[in-house]
């Protein structure tokens, strides 16, 4: 393998892990960061940097690494745009947490969301009880959208909250 290969291959490996984050880790991990999350997110680049550029601190090496990352960012956005399945794999899919005033425990356990967290977000959008919610959906961007229960034929405006750190 030629000497210029390293940043071109090291960048994809780190990008692939980032792209699959929603699928592998769950959306819950990308909500507000706890102190432990923050330390981890600072440490990860430090650890990866060594493998990424080794002792080559040239601008050329940095340019190769950046262009590789940008290429992969574009490629993933293109793939997720062209294929709905890939869009779900890369970006994640919305998860229903509450339907018709009832928690969906299986989904809440999978996403590691507690009823307390849902209630906390519920209050932020001006609702008191879970019975007032038709849909509560954990969106791929880690926010919870609430669609209040309404009378037939008069849909309410959806509200959106954000999961607080548990």
């Amino acid at each position, binding site marked *: 393998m030629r000497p210029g290969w390293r940043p*071109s*291959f090291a960048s994809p490996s780190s990008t692939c892990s980032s792209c699959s984050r929603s699928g592998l880790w769950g959306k819950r991990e990308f909500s507000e960061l706890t102190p432990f999350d923050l330390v981890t997110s600072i440490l990860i680049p430090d650890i990866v940097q060594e493998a990424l550029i080794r002792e080559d601190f040239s601008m050329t090496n940095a340019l190769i690494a950046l262009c590789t990352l940008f290429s992969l960012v574009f490629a993933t956005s293109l793939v997720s745009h*062209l294929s709905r399945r890939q869009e779900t794999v890369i970006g994640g899919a919305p998860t229903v947490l509450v339907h018709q005033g009832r928690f969906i425990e299986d989904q809440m356990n999978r996403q590691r969301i507690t009823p307390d967290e849902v209630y906390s977000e519920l209050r932020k959008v001006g609702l008191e009880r879970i019975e007032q919610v038709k849909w509560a959906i954990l969106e791929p961007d880690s926010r919870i959208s609430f669609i209040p229960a309404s009378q037939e034929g008069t849909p309410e405006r959806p509200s959106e909250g954000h999961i607080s750190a548990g």
Partner: protein
Amino acid sequence: MAGGEIDEAKPPEAPPMRRRFRTDPFQLIGLAFIVAVPILAVAGVFGMSRAEVVGRGGGLELTVRYVEHLRFGQTHNVEIVVTNAGTRAIDTLTVAMDPSYLRGFTDATWTPSPARAYEVDRADVEAGESRLVVVTLRADRDGRHTGAVTATAGGDTARVVLRTFIFP
């Protein structure tokens, strides 16, 4: 709490659309550059590329293996092999490198040690024998650097020109 019916509940989905790749010309230019860089890197364009040049002069044959292009901060060896292609022994063989070439590099280490600035002497080279001089250099200034390596013994001189490009 969770029944099977509730587990499968799904909110209304967004309508489908024909998904296609569309972009404007300016974006394509930028995209071509961004994609080309890693491809060229994998092809070895930005890596270290070695070359060999050979020169003859009288009874001397000079072979230099060096790097044609490398990146800033990388270290490489210039291997200079001088062969006595004549019929008589050489008392003193002098190998010199142009300072203009060395200006692009730092941390120059000569093996064997230089007798004078940029010059190494090797003694008693029998006919058909070769002597090796190695200069270890670290790329320090980006751009093209050109200079000659010269081997001199008696009235004979062999010369080759080195051209190295240092990526920033």
